[in-house]
Structures are given as C-alpha cells and as structure tokens.
C-alpha cells in the first residue's frame, strides 16, 4: 500500500535559523498519525510546509506515492491535504455556511447556490456528528463550535488528509472524546489525520503512529502500545511534565468579588448568562468549569465591563462596579488575561513595551498625567521580560515576532503588574509550552498567597482542579453545581460539565 504522506529529508532554513533539519515522516493511509513536540520544536513550520504555506529548502514530499511540490495552500488542497488551524480563520460576521463556502462558492447558472451547499454541509455535519448548524452566525459560536466549523470547512473542500494543529487545546474531555470519535469515523472512511499535540495521554489514546520532534528534527517514531506517557514526555523534552497544584489554603474572609444574579442577553435576545451568583475572597482561586460556549465568555465580558449585563450586581471590594467602564474597573485593580490573546490581549503590530502599556494606559509607570511615560514603560517592560522569562532580543520588536508562549508570558507579567486585587484569567496557559506553563502557575500561586482573588476559566481540567480552591460548573449560562477540587477527578468534572444525570440532546 502506498503511503498517504511521506516526508523525506525535509530541511527548512530561515536566515540564521534552521527550523527543520532532515525531517522524515511516513504516514500510512487511514490512520491517525500524531506529531508531538514542545512549542518551538518546529512542528508548525513542518505543517506549514506540508500545507503549502512554506517551501522546504531540501527534501521531498510525496502524497499517495507521487512527489508533489506546493506553491500555495491551494496546491495542497488540490491533492487533498487540508489544515485546521489552531487560531481559527473564520469571518465573525458571516454565517457558518458563508464561512464554509468562502473562496469556494458553489454556483448554479452564475448565481450562488447556497441550497446545495447547505445540504452538503448538513450531510457532512451529520455523518461525522459535528453538529454544526449552517445558518448560525460564527460570531455567536463558542470556541469548540468554531473548531468544528473549521474541520467541516476542510472536509467540504474535499480533503483526504487532515492536519489538526493542537485541536484539543480548546476542548473539554467530553468534547475531546467526541472529536476522537469523529476522527475514528473519518479514519474508518479511509481519511488520514495528522494530529499535532503535546497532550500525551490524548495522543496515546487516539494515534496509530507517533512521531516525536525535538529541536527541529524527528527524534523517534513509535507506536502507542510501545511507550508510556512518561517515556514520550522524555523523548519530547527530556523531563517530566510539571503538575499544577496549590499548596496550603490562603483563603481569607475578605470578599473581593461578589456577583449577584448576573444576567447577560445575546444580541438576538437569548439569555446567555442566567442569574449567576458567586463570591471570591482574597487569596482564593475560583475555577469555572464548563464546556466552551456555555456563558464563560459572556461572564468574563460582563465582569470586565465590556458587555453590559441585563440584570445583576457586581461588587468589587464591597463597591458596586456595575456602572464602571472597563478602564475604571482595571484602575480599581482588576487584571485580565483574555482567552484569545491575539484578539483581546495584545497589539500584534506594536512593540513589546507598547503592549506593556496596553490596559495600563492611565497608570504608573506607563503614564504621567495625560502623557505616556515611554521611559517608565520601557524600564518596566524590561522588568517583566526578566522576571517572566520572556524570550526576546529586545523590547522594541513587535509582539507578532514572539512565539505564543512568550506572548502569553508578557501578558501574564503585565496583568500581574500594579498590584491587582482580582485576576480574571481565561485559559492562562493555552497553547503555552511546558516550561512557561509551570512558570505561569507559579506566578498565580504567588499572587494568591499575597491575597489576590482569581477567577480561573480553563478547558484544561487538570489545571482547573490543581489550581482552584473551589470549582463552580457552568452549564447553559447557569452555575449548576459546585465541586471540591480536592475530591473530584477530571472524568467526574467532565460529566458534571455536560450536565450529569440530565438528558442532553
């Protein structure tokens, strides 16, 4: 049988950097092939080469036994290779249907034939259990649903080999199971999946073959039955993974954030957050567990003053802040690590020190009266770069030049500045490598010990259980239950998140 994809001796140099060196990967057809490696190990570059976004300097790519050369992603899709990106490439203001057909519009007699496309989307969605409604606005979808739209988009274009870049980073266990179910169905139909991840348990459970990449080159090819997660981790980084855990409780009885009956309506009038009430004390981490799209984003937006609530009260240190603007809330000591750092956390085309100013425009050391204190901001950016180990040659490079993990470290460092009293952290370690993850946890722990109140939202249940003093479960916009992180397993938490004991459609 010919191989679905065979990469031989792939080498890619950027000026002064070898991103990939002599990479050899053989992907059998009808299998799930996992590619594991730390962030920065060269997985992304390799996938960009396979997807036609970049061209290798050396080496060959064979698809179904025939050598190919890609000049653009369009060439890759022609031979049936499709990519599901980690950062979704969807137009928010279009419907699922419009997003899927974008760039590949079906025509019937010179007109757009949405009916056929809609039927085809329903069919694909149904046969792989993606559960995607073609007529919903992408803006209204949660992260998990957006990912399914991305997968559908690639399938719609007739891909036979799917590249999934860290697909589970945004999913909860049940969704991961669902995704893996989908992948197995795809596999059964003869499709081939390239699965990029650094979550080893998942890789071991779903993959047929595993290729490990370290520092730009393939270091091992193994079968899941032959290795343990620990061995795989050692192959990847040479050390075991850090564990999220809190030490002794630092909870005080000073209430920092009191939320009472908070209700938020969507633009179409649906209730997306329904009478949510909770209190977070100084030195306490409240974890919010929930399947993506159950009101977490709305909760965060309402707490930050980005979206006005329909009802309810938010009190910060006893003071009603409902009418305060986002800026005033930030000045009152609310720090914010957003779920999508590129959308809400930074200005990609601005320098690092300008990103240090962002969100802290009105405060020392960034501002002096109505003026920006450039010197103060730069000095403090140096401090963050140093304390948070942001790997960068200079604070004058644009944020886009940093890797995702380093961008996140800069954001965490910024938000921890200026003695916040409350931290709202959405997926603080998403897409971050092992070392940075441990560092971010340590910073949150330290701040908690100094009486920071933290609202932690995460899809990583280990992180949620390990880092929270209490966990509240959010389902369809309501806090449905509270669990003790000391006594719950990820599996139990996962079923609570989908509404245990309830009939879920």
């Amino acid at each position: 049988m010919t191989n679905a994809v065979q990469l031989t001796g792939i080498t890619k140099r950027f000026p002064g950097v070898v991103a990939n060196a002599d990479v050899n990967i053989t992907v059998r057809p009808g299998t799930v092939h996992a590619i594991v490696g730390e962030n920065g190990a060269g997985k992304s570059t390799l996938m960009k080469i396979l997807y036609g976004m970049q061209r290798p300097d050396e080496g060959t790519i064979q698809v179904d036994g025939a050598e190919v050369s890609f000049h653009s992603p369009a060439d890759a899709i022609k031979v049936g290779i499709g990519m599901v990106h980690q950062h979704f490439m969807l137009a928010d203001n279009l419907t699922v249907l419009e997003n899927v057909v974008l760039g590949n519009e079906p025509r019937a007699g010179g007109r757009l034939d949405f009916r056929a496309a809609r039927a085809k989307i329903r069919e694909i969605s149904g046969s792989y259990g993606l559960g995607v409604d073609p007529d919903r606005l992408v803006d209204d979808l949660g992260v998990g649903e957006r990912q399914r739209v991305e997968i559908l988009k690639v399938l719609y274009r007739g891909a036979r080999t799917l590249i999934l870049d860290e697909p589970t980073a945004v999913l909860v266990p049940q969704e991961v199971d669902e995704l893996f179910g989908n992948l197995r169905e795809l596999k059964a139909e003869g499709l081939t999946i390239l699965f990029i991840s650094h979550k080893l348990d998942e890789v071991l459970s779903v993959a047929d073959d595993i290729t490990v990449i370290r520092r730009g080159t393939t270091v091992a090819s193994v079968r899941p039955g032959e290795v343990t997660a620990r061995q795989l981790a050692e192959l990847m980084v040479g050390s075991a993974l850090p564990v999220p855990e809190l030490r002794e409780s630092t909870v005080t009885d000073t209430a920092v954030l009191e939320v009472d009956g908070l209700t938020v309506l969507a633009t179409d009038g649906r209730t997306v957050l329904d009478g949510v009430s909770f209190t977070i004390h100084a030195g306490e981490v409240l974890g919010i567990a929930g399947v993506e799209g159950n009101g977490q984003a709305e909760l965060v937006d309402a707490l930050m003053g980005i979206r006005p609530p329909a009802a309810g009260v938010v009190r910060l240190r006893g003071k009603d802040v409902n009418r305060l603007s986002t800026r005033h809330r930030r000045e009152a000591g609310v720090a914010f690590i957003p779920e999508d750092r590129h959308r809400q956390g930074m200005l990609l085309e601005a320098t690092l020190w300008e990103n240090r100013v962002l969100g802290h425009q009105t405060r020392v050391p960034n501002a002096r009266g109505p003026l920006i204190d450039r010197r103060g901001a730069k000095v403090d950016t140096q401090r963050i770069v140093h304390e948070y180990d942001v790997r960068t040659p200079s604070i004058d490079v644009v944020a886009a030049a940093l890797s995702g993990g380093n961008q996140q470290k800069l954001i965490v460092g910024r938000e921890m500045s200026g003695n916040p009293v409350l931290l709202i952290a959405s997926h603080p370690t998403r897409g971050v490598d092992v070392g940075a993850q441990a560092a971010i946890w340590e910073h949150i722990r330290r701040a908690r010990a100094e009486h920071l109140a933290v609202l932690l939202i995460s899809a990583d249940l280990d992180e949620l259980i390990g880092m929270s003093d209490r966990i509240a479960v959010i389902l369809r916009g309501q806090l449905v239950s509270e669990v003790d992180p000391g006594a719950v397993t990820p599996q139990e938490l996962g079923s609570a998140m989908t509404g245990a004991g309830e009939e879920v459609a």
Partner: protein
Amino acid sequence: MTGATPSSQIEKHRRFSARAVLLGLAAPVGALVFAALVCTAILVVSKHSPADVVDSMVTSAKRPRTFVIALNNATNYYLAAVAVAIGFRMNLFNIGVDGQYRLAAMLAAALAGASFMDGLPPFLRIAMTIIAAMAVGAAWAGIAGFLKVTRGVSEVISTIMLNAIATALVAFLLNPNRLAVLTGNDIHTPEITAGGQVPGIPYPGTSSATVHGLIIVAAAVGVLYWFVLARTRFGFDLKATGLSESAAVASGVNVKKMVFLSMLLSGGVAGLVGMPELLGGAHSYSLNFPPGIGFIGIAVALLGRNHPVGIAFASLLWGILDASSNGLDVSGVPKEIVAIMQGVIVLSVVVAYELVRRYRVRLEQNEVGRALGRTQVPEAVSS
C-alpha cells in the same frame, strides 16, 4: 552565538531602527520609481519624449514662482492629509474632508469679511476666523461621528453624503441675499480687509508670489499631530483602536468616545485646510476657491503613511507635480500625464506598503528566532 551580551544587544537595537528607516523608505521610493516607469511607457506609446517632459517639469519647478505656488499647494494638501490621517490611524475613513473644509472656509470667510470685525485687533480677527473654521469643520465631521456612534452608520457613507450636502449648502449660502456679495459677475463673500489678512512671506527670486503665512500653522498642526500620537495617552488609545479594536476595548478604551473625538479632531483640522488660501491669498470665498483638496489629502495621507514627516514630503511632491504640470502644456504634452502619474503612485504605494509590512514582520520574526537561537543544539542553549 546567543547574542545576549549587552553590547551586542545595543548593536542589534540600532540595526533594527536603521533597517526600520530603510524599510520605511522602500515602499514610497519603489512606488515612485514604478510610477515613473509607467508614465514613461505611456509617454512613449503616445509618442512624446519622456526626456522633454522631465526637462520641462524640472525647468518649471526650478522657477521660484512655481516653487512658491507648489509650497502653497502643499500647505493645503498637508492639512487635508493630516485630517485624513487622524481618521486612518483609527481605521476611520473620513472621505468628508472635502465638504468639511469648503463649508468651513465659506462660513469663516463670511465671518472674517463681516463689517463688525473691522474694529477688532488683527490677531483677534485672525484667531476668531481660524477657530470658527475649525469649529465648523469639526461640527460637520461630528455629524458623521455621531451617526456612527449612535446608529452604527458607516462614516464612509455619511461623509460622502455630507460632502454633497455641504456643496448644496455652500451654493445656497453663497447668494447676495444671504452671505455673499456680487462684484460684477463674481459672487463671493465680503472681502476680508487688511486687518484680517495674514501677510505672506516673501521668497527670494520672485515678487509676484509669496508663501502663505499660515504655513506656520500647518507646521504646528504637524508637530501637534506627532506629539499627540506618539506621546499622549489619547494618542496611544487612538493607535491601539486602529491596530485592534477588540484589544483596545479589553484594555479599557471607550471606542465610541474615541470614534467621536477623532472625527471631531479630523474635522477640526479639515476646517483649517482653506485658511492659508483664504487669509493669505483669496481673501474671500468664491466659486474660484480651490475644490477637491480633501480628496487629494486622502492620496497624500496614503503616500505619507499617516506619518507627519512622510505626509510633509508627500504633499510637497504633490504640490510640485501640480505646479510644474502647467509648464507641460507649453511643450505640447498634455498635462494630464501628471494626474496619471499621481494615480499610479497612489495605487502602487498601497500595494508596496502592504508588501513591505509583511516582509517586515517576517524579517523581525526571523531576527528574533536567530537572536534566541531557537533551533540550536541543546548544549549550546544550556551553556
């Protein structure tokens, strides 16, 4: 190898900025060269000698009188371009600069020419005229800002419509029964008397033309624009909103307020556009008052990359091209070739900027990758 020593970091820093300047120049220079090539081709095809054209334009531009006219044109263009650039920095497209400055110039001219102004000291008269023009411009642009903030109306649509309304309004008011007077066949606002005029600055080599005195105001606007953008919190919020509205909102920027304020500012600067000509040359608003400067401002702002110095060079280039085009007719070449050249410059510069922007980001990513030695062998990293 790791580039972590302080001296190499400083060196790196300097190289970053030297390269930034080079990259910044690459796009406009490349676009100019490309435009020159296109124009040469057009001239050759239409059987004119490119050399003759260049010759006559250069000869014309060397004449002091032409240069003064170019400088005065450039002053108008500069103000219009800054007005446009303020919007661009926020991702707001103020197409209405044209209507804003014409309405502002007309009403300010009516005020400055009114008889009660005669009794006031010159400085006060001039200041009142300028402030009135800015207020009118700001108010007219403010309508578009208000509509966008409260009703979500695209400023592109509303400012285009406001341009048309301004044209009609100016025509309505410029009537002997209302704000205008009739001198022979010429209908205009009352002549501004000497006390309300801004004297020109003589330029060596010509006595028939002077540089508009209000060129100083244009320069001041440029400095202020730079200062506000680069040094103030307001400017930071404005740039942040332009780079990513969602990130700006999350950082606490009140985007609606910023939209409204920047439309007011843009309109205020637009109100200034007609002032150098009104107070320094025409001394009344008439049908001969130069139209279309607002649209030229859009092109100049694009060419100048919304940067105060870039816009200065761009407006000077535009002014020189316009002023020297008059010399072409004499040499038998249709002067429309200049309009073609300007059009090609704008088109190619937009493309060139995007190419350079992408290249710059990639270059910087590689630079960072190299400085960090991301793909070095483990021994080299840990040592």
